């Protein structure tokens, strides 16, 4: 492949002023087309086709059955909850390290750890939480032997809405820290001093200066975290098996064995996922462009 690339480039660089520069990106474009665009288009088109191949909206309507709607609803709730808490905790930790007057050396290890933790997702993450919050996990054993009660007696179950949310936070919080720390760094000292000279209190500075500047970054990261949680498959499957019916698990089972009994309904299910993550990411890109106006 590389020799083909350089072959076309040699032609275009040989001195003739033919407009052949675009040939250099042909291998890349072909790869993107074959293994990203076309497969996705196949799903999108399939969502609007019946088994004969003609256009229909029936598959989309098929999504509005109680069981599928319930799957979307719990997926969206888990994604919103983990993104919201991830944003709050991540922001608090990033602000503590950047503005809280903590020793300087804490920052670098925290960023490295965030890089590791945000990539520590999938199957092993589920195992870590089973060993911690599961029936015989660390926290339950500690609580039982020291205080005579455990989380299960309080009604907590790892294979549930909150269990999944708490597990997702392990990669959501670090992602927030990684993205928001540069934004908090971008708050200029002059803005604070200017606000103080004009008589602003600490609260007023945050309410009228810092927070509005950071808001697009925070909302944008929220959208990104939401999409991140919404598309997560491996953690959910390793944690709950198939006992919790969220959209990615449902789609996984559908691809494996057509549990919905209609292949084209599977396309529609996947199409719905693209729509949800697509909207979230469009918001992220738009808000990021806005935040960059201030934080340069």
């Amino acid at each position, binding site marked *: *492949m590389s*020799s083909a690339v*350089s072959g076309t*480039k*040699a032609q275009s660089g040989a001195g003739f002023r033919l407009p052949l*520069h*675009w040939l*250099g*990106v042909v291998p*890349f474009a072909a*790869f*993107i087309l074959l*293994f*990203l665009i076309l*497969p*996705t288009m*196949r*799903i999108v088109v399939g969502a609007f086709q019946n088994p004969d191949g003609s256009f229909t909206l029936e598959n989309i309507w098929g999504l509005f059955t109680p069981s599928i709607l319930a799957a979307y609803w719990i997926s969206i709730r888990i994604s919103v909850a983990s993104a919201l808490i991830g944003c709050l905790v991540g922001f*608090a*930790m990033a*602000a*503590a*390290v950047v*503005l*809280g*007057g*903590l020793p300087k050396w*804490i920052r670098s290890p925290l960023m490295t*750890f965030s*890089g*590791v*933790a945000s*990539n*520590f997702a999938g*199957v*092993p*993450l*589920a*195992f*870590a939480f089973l*060993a*911690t919050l599961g029936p015989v996990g660390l*926290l339950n054993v500690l609580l039982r032997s020291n205080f005579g009660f455990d989380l299960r007696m309080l009604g907590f179950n790892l294979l549930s809405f909150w269990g999944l949310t708490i597990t997702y936070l*392990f990669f959501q*919080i670090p992602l927030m820290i990684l993205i928001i720390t540069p934004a908090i760094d971008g708050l200029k000292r002059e803005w604070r001093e200017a606000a103080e000279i004009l008589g602003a209190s600490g609260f007023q500075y945050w309410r009228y200066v810092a927070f509005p500047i950071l808001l697009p970054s925070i909302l944008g990261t929220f959208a990104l975290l939401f999409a991140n949680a*919404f*598309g997560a*498959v*491996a953690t959910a*499957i*390793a944690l709950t098996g198939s006992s919790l019916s969220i959209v*990615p698990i449902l*789609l*996984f089972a559908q*691809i*494996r064995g057509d549990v919905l009994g209609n292949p084209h309904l599977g396309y529609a299910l*996947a199409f719905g996922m*693209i729509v949800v*993550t*697509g909207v979230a990411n469009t918001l992220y890109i738009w808000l990021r462009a806005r935040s960059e106006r201030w934080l340069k």
Partner: protein
Amino acid sequence: MKKLFAWLALVIGLLYFVLPLIGMTRFSLMMRRGELSFDAYVKVFSDPRFQNTFSYSVMMAIVTIIFGIVLVVPTAYWVRLKLPGLRPYIEFVTLLPLVIPAIVIVFGYIRLYNTSSWLPLTGTAFGTDILLMFGYATLALPYMYRAVDTGLRTIDVATLTEAAQSLGAGWTTILARIILPNVLVAVLSGAFLTFAIVIGEFTMAALLNRPAFGPFMQLLGANRAYEPAALAVIAFVITWGCLGLIQLVSRFQKSASRPT
């Protein structure tokens, strides 16, 4: 007062991260009743399925990295040199794998490249491996492209190219002996991240039915008690190792370029 809150936020946050790490480590050592032992690790390492799936995933990671470098470095270089107007579009396209969930992409693969299609990749084990490698390359694309593009920004691509050309170098020589060594640290960062992603990947490998490490971990998790915790510790060490290597090579570059 402010400092107190800062410490509180940090400590509570870190507690949340440290507990699962302690939990999995403790659990992985509890296989022998009544005492701590490395039995779970011995069991995992001596399992032939572990050896097979792990070496399969390592192979896949290496092939994916090589393919990613061959695909991304010439493209990023070419776009910077000759087609700067195309950059925003290419950048947007490379971010798409973060937008479209992996499960949807692999669903598309299965429908598009099945045995009755024009390119029946899933018909043979080798073809499916190729398809899986392309899938991994797609997943790693956002990280690989951004790393290489950032690396290219720090060097003067046009001047280097002209200097090499006036000395008689062809395009292959320029790419392999001028550009690649100059962005090596960036390429290595992308490569280690790709390794970390591929080694534990579950969704694509499971749905394409390949014997990779991710599906093996999930299988073991469904059937065993202590081995999964040992696997989690191993996976965490690998992730930490990959990210640590990225830090190491970028620090090496900083100290190497300081004298100039």
